[in-house]
């Protein structure tokens, strides 16, 4: 505790769970947007990663609410948010936006995988066959015409999904940005900062998994796909970081009443997590690395290594950004005269082990899904790779 904090502020209300929630939601939105770049905007270079990104979005989506449920004081009443929504609250739309987005992603996956489901249905017997019949909702016929309809519907759903993904994540930013009581949160830019950081984290996690899985399997990566994703990551991260800096810069330049306490926050409590780690190491580092890989021709090994490192650093950057926003904002006393403290417990209900478990489960789910329907087939990685080494 530093200076004076109001007596009720000695306990931080929103814990590491609420750090994790926008982080996971960001991965959902980012991964979905990557898949849509292929499905809607026809970026052929992203084809090998399109289906993987779509399923990743769904895997993260399934677990986005888990940290929230773990955090709620009365989780058994969670559905009140949909039964009795109070529409003056920014939070009341959550259930509906989340559900709508979940349905869109689920439908898109279904149409995307219908052909694979049918193939499995036809080649299997007994119980498995029945399961696939249920998954297929009895629609087991595949012709050229059905394929055309499936593709068209995937495209339409991906198109609808883009604004919904933006709303889902931008809205998470709005939850914080609309709290006028908190000077570190209250900014109209929060909406768009969260959106861009979401895309950065989504692209980063895809690059990370794509390279990691291929390294693990000693498989050849599709260099064009990776380079395209790295270029997108470079562009999106520049916008995200500039927006974050512009926000702080404008408050600092205006020298508002809040700046006195925010300056102390940045140079004190958040010095390491915000200035050193988030800005210097995890933003400036990837910016330099990705600038090199995008602008200068390096040996493949080197450039792929730098891309991988940048993806890991940017994943950390976004996690740190969530931490610095969610926890940082709560450290400031509403008396503007001091700072409270927060250290998550390790074994606590909302501690680090619980957070790590919730974060890891979607990856396990992806691994299990890959066992049934492999994401990366050898011929896919060779497509469109004239300059792959």
């Amino acid at each position, binding site marked *: 505790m530093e200076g004076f904090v109001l007596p009720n502020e000695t306990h931080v209300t929103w814990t590491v769970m609420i750090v994790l929630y926008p982080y996971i939601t960001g991965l959902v939105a980012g991964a979905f947007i990557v898949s849509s770049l292929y499905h809607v905007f026809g970026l052929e270079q992203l084809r090998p990663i399109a289906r993987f990104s779509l399923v990743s979005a769904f895997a993260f989506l399934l677990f986005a609410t888990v940290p929230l449920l773990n955090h709620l004081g009365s989780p058994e009443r969670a559905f009140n948010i949909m039964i009795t929504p109070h529409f*003056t609250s920014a939070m009341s739309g959550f259930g509906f936006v989340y559900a709508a987005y979940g349905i869109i992603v689920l439908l898109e996956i279904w149409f995307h995988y219908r052909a694979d489901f049918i193939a499995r249905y036809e080649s299997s017997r007994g119980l498995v066959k029945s399961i696939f019949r249920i998954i297929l909702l009895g629609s087991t016929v595949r012709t050229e015409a059905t394929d055309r309809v499936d593709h068209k519907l995937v495209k339409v759903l991906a198109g609808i999904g883009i604004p919904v993904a933006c709303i889902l994540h931008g809205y998470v930013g709005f939850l914080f940005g609309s709290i006028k009581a908190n000077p570190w949160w209250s900014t109209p830019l929060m909406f768009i900062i969260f959106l861009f950081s979401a895309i950065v984290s989504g692209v980063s996690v895809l690059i990370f998994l794509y390279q990691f899985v291929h390294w693990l399997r000693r498989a050849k990566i599709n260099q064009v796909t990776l380079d395209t994703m790295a270029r997108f990551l470079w562009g999106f991260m520049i916008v995200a970081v500039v927006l974050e800096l512009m926000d702080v810069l404008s408050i600092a330049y205006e020298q508002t009443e809040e700046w006195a306490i925010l300056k102390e926050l940045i140079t004190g409590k958040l010095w390491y997590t915000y200035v050193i780690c988030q800005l210097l190491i995890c933003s400036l580092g990837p910016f330099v690395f990705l600038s090199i890989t995008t602008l200068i021709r390096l040996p493949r090994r080197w450039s792929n290594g730098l891309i991988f490192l940048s993806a890991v650093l940017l994943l950390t950057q976004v996690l740190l950004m969530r931490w610095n926003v969610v926890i940082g904002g709560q450290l400031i006393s509403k008396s503007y*005269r001091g700072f409270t403290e927060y250290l998550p417990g390790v074994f606590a209900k909302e501690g680090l082990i619980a957070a790590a478990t919730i974060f890891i489960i979607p990856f396990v789910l992806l691994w299990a899904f890959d066992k049934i329907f492999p994401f990366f087939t050898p011929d896919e990685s060779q497509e469109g790779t004239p300059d792959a080494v």
Partner: protein
Amino acid sequence: MSEKHDMATRRRFLQFALFNTAGLCVGSLVAFGSSDDSASPSGPDDLSRFDWGFIVDTTRCIGCGSCVRACKIENDVPDGYFRTWVERYEIDEEEKVHVDSPNGSLESFRQDYVRSKHIVKAFFVPKLCNHCRNSACTQVCPVGATFHSPDGVVLIDREHCIGCGYCVQACPYGCRYISHSLGTADKCTLCYHRIHRRLETACVMACPRDARICGNLKDPRSRIRRLLHERRYSLLKPELSTNPKCYYIGLDLEVK
């Protein structure tokens, strides 16, 4: 013959309709027109005649902490959390401001916060929920569990609150907390169970200096209205437009 019969039936019908309409009109007038006056003073119908407000006279508070203790006992406030607390402000000869509120002043202020410097100005400021007219906490509650009662008190429905903590974040005054035993948000109810029965709040009862006044802002003859006309007062964080109903007499610029 049949034409005559028709005429008679029509006449009877019109008479019937006319008498009935007149009866309904007169009946309604009697039933609803006088309802305002006939309701009993403590009945639920007269809640709209009240608008509860609060005055904190910072010039009278001596920081004894009786209000905090009374509130804790009356409302079973969990340890480490406060529905009301008292802050102490001390300004030294170098114009540095020192503020403290050890354990919300539950055990009063047993020792000087600043011992080495000469104090040129000192005062106490009790705080509690401001029961804002435009309350940020009510606005952000996603399930509508926090609401304004018809008599102007911000309350929480403990059986509906999901304990998300959004209201705790939205309150600019740090008046809310999550009660871990209830799993819901909690805060000052202005002793609603007492004021509803025309009893004073626990903190008002306990204050030995008459530094706290609770009353009906809609009653032009109430003490709270008279004091607001006689004294100069201020609000906490008026720039946030929450329109608080907790009025501070003698509020210093240093208090946020």
